[in-house]
Structure formats: C-alpha cells, structure tokens
C-alpha cells in the first residue's frame, strides 16, 4: 500500500449538490444528537462520488463541518481507507487485485497490459479515461484474476479479454460486468460437479 496523503494539486472549493445535501441531512438525522461523527464514512463516500471519484481537501473539510468533527478526525479516516482516493483518478478507475490467488491465476499479465496501455500506477491517462492501482484482496478469489473498475467487478480475466474490455470501455461500448468467460457466479469453470443446479438470478 502506498503512502496516502492529500494530493499536491487541489481544487479550489467543494460544495455538495442540492440532492446530496438533502441526502446528507436525511442521513445525519438518523443519528442521535452528538453521534453524527458515525456518519463520516458514508458522507465521505458520497462526497467522493460527487467529485469525480476523489476527495479533495475542500471536500474533507466540508464533511468535517457538516458533521461537527475536528478536521484531523476526518483526515484520519480519509487517509486510512483505501476506498477513498486522495488524488484524481481516471473516468474508469481500475483497482487490480495482486494478492496470492489472483497472482497465481495470472494477474501479472493484467499488470503488464495496464503498464502498456495506461502507464504506471496512480497516473491518469492523457485522455482522462483510465488510471489504475494495485490493491489487496477484493474477495473474488474463485474468479481470479479480477479487477474492480469503478463500482463493478470484472472477473476471469486474461490478457486478451482484459485488453478487449478496456477497448470497449474506451470506446464507450457496453461491457459485461462479472465473469468475462461466461461464468454466472463462482461455479466451477468446466461443468457443474457437486452442486448440480444454479439458483437465484443465475438459474434464469
């Protein structure tokens, strides 16, 4: 994990959109008086979503004000969790899992693709479309290797289908979320063996 500090280049100001403001007020009201600080992670998350997927200093201070917290308390949270990006990210922010199962299943190939197409970690491409970061286990080991792009998981990747996925994203074409080799969930790659039927959404 890299050192997490505020970005050197900051945006001037941050203001919640009216919808987010209303959302924030509604959420804050759920907490007992004096316990609003418990809202800090959802509030930061909302601020990040609104702000091109990264948190600026102004956004952190805004959240501190809204929740009546000392600024350092919010900064502590924002620098602790890797889900908060402290510097600008691409429109498609790729978090690549490099932990053991994915590594064994070939995440190195994906890293090579990213290095070639996107460049080094934490750098946004000139067109603003991509940036990437290697992260720890995202909990989809059955479908390794995998990446998370913005909110969605893309699994069972190979250098080829990952490249195609990136092409499609760059061109704005629709992409398939989840397994890229037709798996429904984490069932065996070949045929169903011990549990012989799919259930839930997968069965349809």
């Amino acid at each position, binding site marked *: *994990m890299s*050192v*997490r*500090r*505020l970005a050197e280049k900051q945006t001037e100001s941050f203001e919640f959109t009216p919808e987010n403001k209303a959302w924030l007020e509604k959420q804050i009201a759920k907490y007992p008086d004096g316990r609003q600080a418990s809202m800090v992670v959802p509030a930061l998350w909302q601020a990040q979503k609104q702000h091109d997927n990264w948190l600026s*200093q102004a956004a952190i201070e805004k959240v501190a004000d809204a929740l009546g*917290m*000392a*600024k*350092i*308390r919010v*900064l*502590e949270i924002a*620098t*602790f969790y890797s889900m908060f990006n402290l510097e600008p990210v691409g429109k498609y922010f790729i978090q690549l899992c490099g932990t053991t199962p994915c590594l064994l299943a070939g995440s190195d190939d994906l890293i090579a693709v990213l290095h070639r197409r996107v460049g080094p970690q934490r750098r946004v491409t000139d067109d603003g479309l991509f940036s990437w970061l290697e992260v720890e286990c995202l909990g989809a080991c059955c479908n390794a290797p995998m990446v998370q792009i913005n909110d969605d998981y893309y699994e069972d990747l190979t250098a080829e289908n990952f490249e195609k996925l990136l092409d499609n994203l760059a061109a704005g074409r629709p992409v398939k979320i989840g397994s890229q080799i037709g798996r429904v969930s984490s069932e065996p790659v070949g045929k169903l063996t011990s549990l012989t039927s799919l259930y839930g959404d997968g069965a349809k």
Partner: protein
Amino acid sequence: MTKILVDGVEVDVPGDFTLLQACEQAGAEIPRFCYHERLSIAGNCRMCLVEVKGGPPKPQASCAMSVKDLRPGPNGAPPEVLTKSPMVKKAREGVMEFLLINHPLDCPICDQGGECDLQDQALVFGVDSSRFHENKRAVEDKYIGVLVKTEMNRCIHCTRCVRFTAEVAGTGDMGAIGRGEDMEITTYLESAMTSELQGNVADLCPVGALLPKPQSFRGRPWEYQKTETIDVMDALGSAIRVDSRGREVMRILPRINDLVNEEWISDKTRQIVDGLKTQRLDRPYIRENGRLRPASWQEALAAVAAKTKATSASRIGALVGDLAGVEETFALKLLAEQLGTPNLDCRQEGAKLDPKFGRASYLFNATVAGIEQAGAALIIGANPRKEAPVLNARLRKRWLRGDFKISLVGERADLTYDYDYLGAGPESLLQFIRSAKPTEKLLIIVGQGALARDDGEAALTLAAQAAQRLGGLGDGWNGFSVLHTAAARVGALDLGFTPGAGGLDARAMAKAGALDLIFNLGADEIAIEPGAFVVYIGTHGDRGAHRADVILPGAAYTEKSGLYVNTEGRVQRAFRVVFPPGEAREDWAVLRALSGALGAPLPFDSLAALRRLLVESHPHFAELDEIALGDHAQVVALANHPAVAMKDSFAPAIQNFFFTNPIARASAVMAECSALAQGRLAQAAE
C-alpha cells in the same frame, strides 16, 4: 469487589478495574506506554502484556482487559494473572524489540534522555542486542506549534497526545494519519495546536518525539535542582515543579495535585520561563528630570522616606498587584496602618468583591474538585478557558461524563464544550433566574468580567440569587463560585486589603490629583494618572515601572517563599527556587527596609517572624492546603443585598491570555504564542 490472584498474591478489587490496576494494587509493576490514568484506554503499545488463567490462552494487554472479564477456576478459584512468568518475559521482550525496530538510537542527542519511558523500560524489559538489519523508517518532523518540537522518527504511536487533545484539551488538534507502516502523528496539515494546554503533550509523550521547544538542547534532567512550588499565572494555584540550574530557572513542570490541577498546567504556567530572565529590575531606580536613573538602595529608600514624611496620611495610597504573596501584602498593610492611610486596594481591575460580605462571597466555594460533583453549571461573565485553562479542562471532564447542562451569560467563546447561550448581560441573567427550573447542585461561576464594572455588586448579587433560587445551595454543596484571575487576589481579600473607612479604591487612587504618594506592590494592570509620586516594588520593567518615580526591585514568584491563596481559598506555600537577580530583594524585606528608612521599623526581622505575626492575626493562613465549605448564610445575605444592574454586556476579563502579567509580557515565547493566536482570530474573522 472481585478476588483475583496476581503472581500468587490475592487482591480484592472492583470488577471494573483493569488488570493493570489490579496488578498495581498487588504491587506488581507493569510496563506501559500508551496507558495513562487520565486518558481513555487505547491498548495499542502492547507493552503491558500479562499471562492470564481464566481468559484467552495468549498474552493479554492488561490495560484493556478488566477484572470481570476473567472467569474463575472450575472450583470457584479466583482468576489468576501472572506478570513474571517466562511467557510474559518473552512477550515483553518481543514487544520491546518491535518498538525499537523503527526507533532511532539517538538517545545521546535526545532531550528526553534521562527521563524517557522507552529508555528506562528498554533497560529493564528489553533484550541486550538488536537482530534487525534493515533500514529504519524515516518520518518527517511536523510543525505543530511554537511550544512543542517534534522529532517524529522517535514516535512509537502510543497516541497519548491524540487522546489528550481530543479528550482533556477538547480541541482535537492532533491525529494519526495513514495506516500501518505509514501512520504518522500530526496536526491537521501541520497547523499549530490551538489549546492552552498543548504543552502537556510533551509531558505525556513517553519518548522524545514531542519535546518542549523552548527548552531544546538546554540541559539534562539530572543536572537540575527540582523545587516543588505553586504557580501564580492564574488564580488556580496549580502545583508545579520548577527545575533550576545554578541561578537560572530552566523549566516548569506540573506536579500531581488531584484537588487542583490533576497533572496538567497551562502553557502560560509552563512557558513563561524566559520571562523570568528578561526585563528584570535588578537595582533600584529614581526618576530625575523625567528619566529613571540607577540608584543605590540607601538613596532610593531615602527618597521614598523623604516623600512619605512630606505627605499627609490621607494623601497616601497602597496598591497590591496580581502576583504578590500573602506575606508582602500583609507587610504592606502593616506599613499602611502605621502610616495611617485608609487608601488600600488589591482589586486593580476594579472588581466589586469585598470581604465585608464574608469569605464565601469571593471564593470558588464549589472547589475545583467539586466541579465533578456538579449537576449543572451557569457561567456568568467568565471565559474559564482563558481565565483558568486547567479548571476549564475539569469542567469539560464533567461535561463529557454527560447529563451536565451548561448555560452562559457573557461573551460567546469556544470553551471546548457545548453550552446554552443565554445572553450578553445582566438582563438575560435576571430572566434566567426568574424562568429557569432549579437543578440539583448547580455550579455558578462568576467571572471578573461580570464583577469588574460599576455595577459589579449587582452582578454578584444576581449570581447569589441564582445560587439561592436555582439549586446552588444545598446539603454539603455551595455552588456559588467566583473565578479569580489573579493569584494574589484571594489572599489579599482575606487580609482585608481593601479601602478602610473613607478610603479610596484602586480606580479612585489612580485618578489624577487623588493622591500624592502611592506604594505600588506590583500592580501593573492599572494606569496611574500623572500627579502622584509612585513607589513601585516589582520585578519587571513593565507598565508599573514605567510610571514609577522610585523603583524598588523585588522578587518574582520563583525567587521568594510565600503563601498564596487560590480561587477556592486553598492556602498553599510556594518555595524559593533561585535568588532574585542583582540587588533585588524579597518583597517583604524591601518593605521592612522601607519602614526602617521611615524611622518606624515593622515588627519583624525575618520571614518566619512575619509569618508568625500573620498567623496570629489571621489564623487560617496556618491551615495549609485546606478549605472549609463556604458559608451559605453569606451567599444568602449577598442575594438580598440591594443593587441595581445596568444593561451593558459583560466584557471578557482577559483580552489576551498570553499577556496577563508582567512576567508573561516579558516572555518572548508568550509573545510568539500570542501572535499565533491573534493570527487565528484574524483568520476566523475574515
């Protein structure tokens, strides 16, 4: 109560005790870094590991596990804690090794050396050599203010400073950013800390990461002579230890006194050290042709004697400042009595407090420790954060415990706790007294901001009425509490250093043409208008000295032994640490010499004789460190005292926390703190 075996010793402790406390009770020593009695439990240094039977079968952090968490044995045998077993020894050595992985071995150049918890505990609980060959972690030093220097490589992340600023100081200045190996202790974007208690983080730091900046590289703790004495920067009378080397005061540290300051002191108390060395009056001066010239003691005393003999008693006055001890105030009173003048005053800012209403009318009757028993608080014309920061921490401590409503009349300020703002002046107070419901154990804090005005008596009366009507007076509880700002004030009021029959008060004395001769014992906060001949007995070339016609150099509080009475009426003894500079002498001796020059020596030749005399006429000064419950009847009588309040808002008593007395004004460190604070104010106003 729960029985528990500690190394085979059975102790009976409350179930909510932590294992660490139980072990201490049993006499077993437990090493620790993050645990601190007055802060919340963090349990992150792991140094206090012990072995338990009746709990999880692994080393347990004894600070974070309570006695009731342990199960008794199968036959009801008490749970057992081992602090000296091989497992504990190995665990401690392991933790110490981990702590030292990233700790630099720079003890020879570290100011904490000699009083460092890590150094001491590494010696006792560590291993003798290092097995670690990798590079150590490097952390940039942070700017966190002018009082605390950082050396962040040394930080072991105990988070005591973070918890102190969040819990005790209430400003939430410090925090830990990042995580794991990248965790760093800092303030928000390296801004300066804002608390008046920030200096305490350097004391709390168990290693040399946070150090007092003004004392950097000055000396080693074993070189210092340590004197336990009493602080005079505010009226709280905090217990301090003054460290000196040769004739120089090196630093001031808090001592533990649970009844007054727990173990905190304010930044002013701690860091006026350099003020004791600068701007000092070290020889007598006489004003000639409008300019002060150095003179000998004989010359100066002769000049005063000549002027005194040429002046009629009714045209002579005597003022006592904020830092004077009881002895010299008493000596000045004796001198004034001898001269026959009724013009005495110790209330230079004009507070309408008077011994005639009884002692309970000017004391902090609830007592500082009593704040923790209070049920609600009403603050009138006071800003406790500036007037007595350590007392404010006590209020915050009570507030944090919950169910403690605080109301405030006066100027709005950030007091580090929430309060109901009632209004700015006496009218809001009157309305509150009429409409509010009585609460149990109401604490009424009356500040000098409400009292130091023409209708101060009315404010005092209103406060007494609030106490009477709203639950301030009860069984074993007297919540009527006057918060003083001057260390000398209560002692001087106890002595009755107020105008006699037909005498003028401080403000009247200072008026042009009111008097011909004024003896000024360190009163620097009052502007004496031209006309009178002023004899200034004091320590610093401050306002009083600038106005003086004769200066008789006296001793600062670290240079004399004396009694001080704090705002609750606690008589405490301060001790001499070093000698006064140059030709300066202790104030009582100056007054004794002055009386000799006048041809009528005062009846004492030593401080002991003066004290005997003092105790004969005022026996309560002999009762050191004791306070009696304030007399309810005096507060009730005060409530019935007729007085009419004006409409003006209560103004704050202290404009600048860092400049309240001549010593602080002479201190470059205080000036730096003040500039920072003013900068913050200006920024906030934008």
